[in-house]
């Protein structure tokens, strides 16, 4: 089903990531990562790619044998995008979903840019929102041209013909399959405008279609990047300097070279790799090296030193992200003020597939086999490291064994190409789990200050939230970091903060932690902000002796869709009904990635302070639904991902080194710890929102609020870990 070839005709279109494609930030309403809107160029006038293939646009190839190929712009990492993207095109093309063959798109920002992010990227829960129209249009364009071609052959009015199940049908019932029409259709001009189907006529979109990638994932045939097998390939594993920013000083490899199966020890600027006949030889070789590092300027960095610096920075005024009314005036005159400080830790991604990359560098070419969310950036970094022009770099993109944001960075590819340059023939570089956890790009540490002011009637009149933390955008997409404001760092805190309060001030202080790199993590900015905002709002409800759901309702009068999911979840969860003494209920609401969501968590806290999530009820309004079963799966999985982080997720530094190693000390949820999860979908025809991340976002505050409900202890710092243990 999943075929991977590079389309020779697309080679001329290949270009590395260009900053020009990034328009200046104008974060669209509710977008997770909406940096700017870059509309793809209009569909090209040339319909023909090669003889006998009908290719009305960059996404579709229809061949005389009736095969229909979707050149898949997005990468599959579990979120179901292979299926939902195919559903969009199959709906308009009028073909059975299982007929769609997928090919991973080659690098091309010009042809395969994410419409919401401006270049070739899978991230920010943008695939369905971004490609909702372009892929339906691509399918509809092909359908219109195939109908036209058939109508000419039959000498009838195209308007009297229709398409169904891969065939064009004439008014008298004659039928021609698409394969028989490709030659004629390819000669027709590509129409500028085509009518898209009315949503009420959808037969595929909105149905729980079977995922296209599942069959090969249950029998071992699915190929992830780590499964690439290239003839003559060698295997390598790597150790980078354990202190970020350090360098390789010297290495004695005499013991390693003596191990049977070890071929070579490769030294690069900040790392050393051992190349062998198989991973076992490479692993043993690496363990036998005697390495001396120059630890560099970060050798004394610790979590404590980072947080101290951040706490100091948070005392300064930040860049204003939202200002309603006049907080400077209303706060000092408030009858009562509440202050709180919240902290969130650095987090690793810990995807199941460890970082890996297979590379073959020759004097005039470089082939890369990898799973990556940013294909054109993979090409660009390889071009830079090898000195080869981008068109000499082939990126063979693969399935990703869990992304969660990690594969939005190409550091692993940069390193792998630097190693492969010194190796004769193809080499697969695989990181150990320890290397993967200790050389991640980490979800930033955040330090949040809140002040709320109430008037004499206990009405909330003033609200100040100051976010302090690293800017991922300033590193990852510099043109999108404008006037000192990181739209991601405040996403979920500023304009998406749904509560009606007369005076609101949200500001942002950028503080970069020394000694590590920060990056995207499932749920991005909102995972941080929704936790702190929803926890603080809960504090305010308690302060005014109001029920947390009732208090939220009283501030959500102008937010019908937020109110809608809150009311639905309250009803489904049985909000207000009795629970055992050791169990509490907590709620959260959110608007992120274009999707509205509300969760209720039931959390049990034992006398010993052990925390167990028993049940989670979630209401989701993501507008138009493409695949309801995928939505439920993403919400279930997102919640579980968020529970792991809320309970235990934490990367700490000592002596400049990450202290965690593996799943023993970077603990994640297991099946026996998994709660009952119920997902309720709101049906409507609003624009589709993203779904890969929202489930993760609101679970931590729902848990923390439930913990308060049962223990009276407010969790203001994650992870929860042993905070509830009696002193």
């Amino acid at each position: 089903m999943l075929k991977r070839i590079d389309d020779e005709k697309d080679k001329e279109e290949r270009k590395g990531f260009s900053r020009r494609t990034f328009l200046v930030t104008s974060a669209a309403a509710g977008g997770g990562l909406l940096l700017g809107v870059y509309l793809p160029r209009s569909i090209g006038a040339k319909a023909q790619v090669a003889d006998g293939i009908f290719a009305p646009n960059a996404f579709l190839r229809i061949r005389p044998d009736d095969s229909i190929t979707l050149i898949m712009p997005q990468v599959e990492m579990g979120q179901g995008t292979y299926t939902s993207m195919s559903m969009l095109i199959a709906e308009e093309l009028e073909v059975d979903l299982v007929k769609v063959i997928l090919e991973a798109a080659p690098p091309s920002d010009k042809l395969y840019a994410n419409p919401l992010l401006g270049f070739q990227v899978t991230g920010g829960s943008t695939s369905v929102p971004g490609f909702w129209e372009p892929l339906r249009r691509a399918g509809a364009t092909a359908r219109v041209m195939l109908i036209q071609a058939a109508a000419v052959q039959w000498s009838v009015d195209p308007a009297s013909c229709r398409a169904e199940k891969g065939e064009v049908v004439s008014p008298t019932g004659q039928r021609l399959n698409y394969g028989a029409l490709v030659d004629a259709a390819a000669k027709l001009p590509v129409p500028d405008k085509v009518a898209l189907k009315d949503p009420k006529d959808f037969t595929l979109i909105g149905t729980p279609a079977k995922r296209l990638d599942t069959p090969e994932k249950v029998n071992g045939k699915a190929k992830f990047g780590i499964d690439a097998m290239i003839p003559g390939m060698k295997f390598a594993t790597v150790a980078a300097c354990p202190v970020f920013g350090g360098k390789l000083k010297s290495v004695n490899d005499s013991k390693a070279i003596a191990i049977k199966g070890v071929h070579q020890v490769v030294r690069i600027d900040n790392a050393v790799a051992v190349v062998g006949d198989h991973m076992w030889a490479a692993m043993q070789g690496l363990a036998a090296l005697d390495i001396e590092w120059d630890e560099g300027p970060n050798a004394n960095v610790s979590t404590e030193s980072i947080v101290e610096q951040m706490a100091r920075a948070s005392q300064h005024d930040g860049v204003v992200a939202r200002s309603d009314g006049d907080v400077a005036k209303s706060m000092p005159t408030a009858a009562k003020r509440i202050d709180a400080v919240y902290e969130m830790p650095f987090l690793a991604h810990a995807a199941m597939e460890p970082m890996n990359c297979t590379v073959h560098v020759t004097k005039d070419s470089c082939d890369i086999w990898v799973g990556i969310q940013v294909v054109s950036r993979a090409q660009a970094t390889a071009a830079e490291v090898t000195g080869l022009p981008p068109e000499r770099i082939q990126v063979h993109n693969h399935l990703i064994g869990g992304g969660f944001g990690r594969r939005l960075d190409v550091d692993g590819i940069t390193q792998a190409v630097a190693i492969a340059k010194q190796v004769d023939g193809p080499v697969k570089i695989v990181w150990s789990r320890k290397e993967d956890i200790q050389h991640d790009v980490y979800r930033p540490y955040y330090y949040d200050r809140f002040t709320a002011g109430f008037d004499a009637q206990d009405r909330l009149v003033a609200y100040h939230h100051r976010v302090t933390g690293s800017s991922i955008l300033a590193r990852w997409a510099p043109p999108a970091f404008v006037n000192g404001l990181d739209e991601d760092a405040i996403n979920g805190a500023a304009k998406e903060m749904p509560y009606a309060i007369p005076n609101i001030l949200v500001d942002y202080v950028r503080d970069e932690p020394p000694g590590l790199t920060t990056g995207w993590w499932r749920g991005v900015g909102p995972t941080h902000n929704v936790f702190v905002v929803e926890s603080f709002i809960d504090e305010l409800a308690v302060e005014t002796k109001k029920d947390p759901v009732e208090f939220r309702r009283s501030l959500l009068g102008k937010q019908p869709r937020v109110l809608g999911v809150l009311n639905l979840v309250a009803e489904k969860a049985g909000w207000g009904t009795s629970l055992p003494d050791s169990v509490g209920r907590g709620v959260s609401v959110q608007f992120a990635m274009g999707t509205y969501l509300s969760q209720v968590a039931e959390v049990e806290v034992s006398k010993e302070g052990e925390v167990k999530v028993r049940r989670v009820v979630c209401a989701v309004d993501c507008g138009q639904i493409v695949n309801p079963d995928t939505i439920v799966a993403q919400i279930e999985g997102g919640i579980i991902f968020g529970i792991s982080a809320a309970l235990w997720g934490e990367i700490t530094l000592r002596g400049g080194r990450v202290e965690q190693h593996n799943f023993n000390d970077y603990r994640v949820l297991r099946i026996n710890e998994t709660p009952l999860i119920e997902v309720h979908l709101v049906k409507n025809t609003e624009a589709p929102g993203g779904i890969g991340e929202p489930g993760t976002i609101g679970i931590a505050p729902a848990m923390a609020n439930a913990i308060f409900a049962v223990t009276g202890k407010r969790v203001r710092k994650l992870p929860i870990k042993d905070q509830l243990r009696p002193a």
Partner: protein
Amino acid sequence: MPTLLINGQEQELDVPDDMPLLWVLRDVVGLTGTKFGCGIALCGACTVHVDGRPIRSCILPVASVVGKKITTIEAIGETASGAKIQRAWLSLEVVQCGYCQTGQIMSAAALIESNPNPTDAEIDAAMSGNICRCGTYPRIRTAIKQASQSA
């Protein structure tokens, strides 16, 4: 030079005795369905069957499985329990990224082979060694029940 019986085929292999079975399968034999996840038997991604029992192949020296019957994900569909589990996995759309799923399926197939009608607690006990970061656990539980109830 150990000879192994993998998925019903004898394979003579030039590998060191202490080499973990995982790397023999993946890098030497070319059966990449068995996955590397943690390297220290914490995650279950590398689960295979040795004489029908689920074993973490990442810490299993190849010398210890000489003369034993090794079954990997590539052949588990040929067993009745394995085929049942695969069908249930497909019918309930358990899979997301899929990386851990081959290990999950190996553990689940071994469970229903030895215990045709497991309770929730028995499912938890048998499956708690297999980590899934996508969070497919609720569906894994349902799928095992469906498979155990199917003919």
